[in-house]
């Protein structure tokens, strides 16, 4: 692949794009969303695993009928996974994609 493209004359190589403020901003926003979110769900998941492993009495506690704390925690993992998926897809579609597309068009030349 050639490093020179039509389009924005100032952005002639991937290196130029990488060093441009627009791209830095895009990368910063991406990382600021996905890294904390990853940390969050991993911590929540391991809290659950450790509770199941080392606090089985607590997890066996019945909340209503035969529904235990552990079952609710487990179902909570499903809820949080669905919620993070919804949040991320909405964020990426609305906030991230337009800016990424803007940069992509600059790089590839707005010919298509």
């Amino acid at each position, binding site marked *: 692949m050639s490093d020179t493209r039509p389009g924005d004359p100032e952005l002639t190589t991937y290196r130029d794009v990488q060093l441009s403020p627009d791209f830095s901003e895009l990368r910063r926003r991406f990382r600021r969303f996905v890294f904390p979110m*990853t940390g969050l769900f991993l911590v929540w998941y391991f809290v659950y695993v450790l509770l199941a492993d080392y606090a*089985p*009495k607590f*997890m066996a506690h019945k909340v209503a009928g035969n529904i235990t704390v552990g079952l609710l925690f487990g179902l909570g993992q*499903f809820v949080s*996974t669905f919620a993070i*998926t919804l949040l991320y897809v909405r964020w990426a*579609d609305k906030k991230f994609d337009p800016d990424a597309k803007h940069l992509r068009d600059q790089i590839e030349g707005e010919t298509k």
Partner: protein
Amino acid sequence: MLLPQATVGDPKVNIAIFALFVVATLAIVIRASRNNKSAADFYAGGRSFTGPQNGIAIAGDYLSAASFLGIAGAIALNGYDGFLYSIGFLVAWLVALLLVAELLRNTGRFTMADVLSFRLKQRPVRMAAAISTLGVCFFYLLAQMAGAGGLVALLLGISDRAGQSVVIAVVGIIMITYVLVGGMKGTTWVQIVKAVLLVLGAGIMTLWVLAKYAFNLSSLLGAAVDKSPAVGEKLLSPGLQYGATGISKLDFISLGLALVLGTAGLPHVLMRFYTVPNSREARRSVSWAIWIIGIFYLFTLVLGYGAAALVGPDVIRAAPGKANSAAPLLAYELGGEILLGVISAVAFATILAVVAGLTITASASFAHDIYGQVIKKGQVSGDGEVRVARITVLVIGAVAIVGGIFANGQNIAFLVALAFAVAASANLPTILYSLFWRRFNTRGALWSIYGGLGSAIFLIVFSPVVSGKVDKKTGASLSMITDTGIDFSWFPLDNPGIVSIPLAFVLGIVGTLTSKEQVDVDKFAEMEVRSLTGAGAEKAVAH
């Protein structure tokens, strides 16, 4: 209970329904493959699947026999501890969604190695990535083929090993046909059909079970407890399988780690992201996959406890397929031989589709990475690569058949968990480092891949999985080597993840920092810009 010991239902019905599925999907595969021309068609289905289509296919690829039969059985017998498998398998998708899927789609062409070797020294890194791809696919294949054997035992009343081996061979041959004829496009359609059938089948059974308990989950759980006097209330709380000792608790953490970090390193899942036209569709695929997989695992929770309540642990243990037969036995209990036939055909289809997906991934990795890039140094046409890929399909098919015959009878959820441990150790660290860590270099990649792969396999070999695990009550061997006299295990855990995954991450750092290799700043810039913006990404094939 009037369950015959050797078989359940009418084998003729089971075979007829399964044959119907094979004929129908084969017709779809042949139709879908008419446009198979280029390498992008064979490996990536022309990159023309939509996000939802690919999402369903991912679910089809991922919801293996281990998910359906293994988890339902684990919940039926071990209650809550079986639930952990499904939670780990599901939460893991967030790693793929947030950190891997879109960036991989934007930078690679056909295989995981495309991304790993993007900015490092091509040949050694590609070779390492291809070897670990083949390794993970091998473990996963074994699990699926072993599942086929167990299922056959139950459904067709074939209890002798020779007869089961013949059926495993038939499954292998059908799968090879799918892949050879249909390539990625045909395989994808098989996954889609199978995923729809599987989720529908499990959904109907779930509603049926719940209806028997007036849609009251609490009374279903109560009935499961009543039917399991040996363990009683423990069925509803963690610890039944893993809570016995300090070592088994550590094993539980090890398993949890392998599950959550394994998915985003599974080569056959990663390869599916190349079948869509762009990163937005890759994102939609994962989102669809998460919903389908999540809902399906909620079904298995009901099915597992339903099997405990309606079939009972004693009957399940006595059945030829043991834990793996919980779901089919439940189907028989609910809807007689017709529902059993449908559910078993779906389970067969599941194995077939997953094995096809693994085979195409392994063959792509061999043909594209090892043959095309390492041996021929990129100087080979797409057609030449595809020809090699087709030959590889035959070889892998043969290996899968032979391996399946030997692994027949092993617990499948657990074999899959090993595949996840290898994937999480060998692949994930390098994927993340090469996407997010500027300084990362070739030595870091090689140390991490080979270190992760090697340590995971090494520890498995010397774990109780392979030798020396004995059932204390019966004295029977629970290991792969069934001769209880042979015991060379010294690693106490079944799952190596807790050692091999951190080790692989550390090796990546140490290897990188001790190497004097300069970062290829231009290649890194290209990778980073392409991964985030999608500029220069491979486009869909226009037909």
